[in-house]
């Protein structure tokens, strides 16, 4: 089945933009990372765990707080939504029982937005959490898939592409864990764990099949992303030791 779509920057539909990640970019933060996908770049800083949780939070668990800083202007409703999605996504990958009654702040600064901003921010904050040594269950990798009018799916769309799309799907998957115990099942039912979806945010109207198709393609690409993330995190381990 060949159904090519021409992309503005000449990428193939499955091709991601060049990835770059550097950790420990900020001196004062307990952990930090910058993540870029093409021209989209986000810096994440992690402070904590600090003592105490906010009022209304469960003191028997660690609390994660997310602050989203826009490139320019004040933060409004979209930023509040980003904060909520990020907070709940990060909460689901952190081991919250290890540091009960503490708060960890994750601050995200948008450096440049050229599409796929939310996935970029999730990837950056995940790398920053690792850099800060916050105990995690597993890593999370985020990717956005664009559905064009014909139903074809392109990965990691840029801002210009986003505007032409029929629908946009942001997906967050857990990364694949190379298990030391091959017998121990990281499978749930008949699906491997990394097929599970942590978060999903969609914009635009599409058919259910379009969505499932995006899910499949997004998942296939997430393996690439999680390989990149792991390689990047490992390479810096010796220098820290």
């Amino acid at each position, binding site marked *: 089945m060949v159904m090519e779509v021409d992309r503005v920057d000449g990428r193939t539909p499955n091709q991601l933009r060049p990835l770059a990640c550097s950790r420990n970019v900020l001196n004062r933060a307990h952990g930090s990372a910058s993540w870029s996908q093409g021209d989209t770049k986000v810096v994440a800083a992690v402070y904590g765990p600090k003592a105490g949780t906010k009022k*209304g939070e469960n003191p028997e668990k660690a609390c994660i707080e997310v602050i989203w800083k826009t490139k320019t202007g004040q933060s*409004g*409703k*979209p930023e*509040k*939504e980003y904060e*909520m*999605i990020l*907070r*709940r*996504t*990060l*909460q*689901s990958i952190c081991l919250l029982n290890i540091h009960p009654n503490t708060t960890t702040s994750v601050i995200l600064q948008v450096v440049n937005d050229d599409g796929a901003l939310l996935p970029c921010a999730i990837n950056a904050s995940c790398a920053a959490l690792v850099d800060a040594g916050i105990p995690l269950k597993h890593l999370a990798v985020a990717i956005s898939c664009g559905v064009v009018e014909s139903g074809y799916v392109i990965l990691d769309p840029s801002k210009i592409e986003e505007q032409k799309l029929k*629908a946009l*799907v942001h997906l*967050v998957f*857990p990364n694949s864990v190379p298990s030391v115990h091959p017998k121990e099942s990281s499978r*749930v*039912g008949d*699906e491997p*764990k990394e*097929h*599970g*979806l*942590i*978060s*999903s*945010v*969609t*914009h*635009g*109207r*599409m*058919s*259910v099949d*379009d*969505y*499932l198709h995006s*899910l499949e393609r997004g998942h296939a690409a997430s393996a690439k992303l999680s390989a990149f993330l792991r390689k990047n995190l490992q390479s810096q381990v010796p220098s820290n030791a």
Partner: protein
Amino acid sequence: MEAANPSGDLSAEMEVDAFRRLFPLRFFDRHLVESIRPDGRPLGRARDTTLALGAVASADGSALAKIGSTTMLAAIKLEVMTPATESPDEGSIAIDFHMPPICSPMVRPGRPAEAAPVISKQLSDTILSSGVINLKELCLISGKAAWMAYLYPEERNNMNLKVDKLWNFMITIVDIYCLDADGALFDAALLSAIAAFSHLEIPVVSLDEDGRVVILSQDEGLKTSNEPVNAEKRKLTLSDIPFSLTCILYKNYILADPTAEEESVMETLITVVLDSSYQLVSLYKPGGSVLAYTSALQDCIALTRHRVQELKKILDEAMSEMEVD
């Protein structure tokens, strides 16, 4: 007493309410094993849902939606606007979701609830991307010639208006108030907003001496010297209405339409919005400790399909009741 399993021993003699508060997860587990929920519902069933159109007399369109005890009051007010330069033939929609302190013990005056701006954003995303409202219909006077005739008068320039802007469009300002928060807030809010839109009528208007658009009340319409500029009140045509269903994922269970208690105990929520032709408008899962597998997603979508039919029927009934009156 054996320290190994204190709750197990206690549960036999403890009052149900105390057990429910102290060990909420175990309380729910016991119910779920029997495929039933504490309020007697099967897992996949939504709570009783009612709609009342025209609940607010002072609004141009309004509706009260109740899902279980979650109550939402949506009211639409029309204001006149000039279209944005990038879409010169479209009106606009502004949606605000409010959680006043009366709705929940978690909300205190002076401190807006965290969830409110997020739900506002979700609602406007959903309503705009579903295309249920044709923004071109928010035009007051159609036809180009008519537009030119009602240029805003030059004297009004002191209000920083350009002469070429046309006060010919309506902005529909939707305010949704949560009156009672008991879970599935987004579902109820969307339902009330949609119902308010279906109740909305664009009124007969005329222009006064200053060139301002003024609504003509029915009896007055014939008497005044100002000619009405549009013939009669009209309703918006709603195409492909979006409906939503929120589900909880917990272990292998899927619980449709959770209550506030269920939401607080089992954290993984997933909200599916389908329109009346079963296109997917939104699939929203903000994190949560339970991972969603394709099969679970498909189950949620199937539950939502069923719910769309239910809600469509409820909306149709509410509208036909309105017409009888």
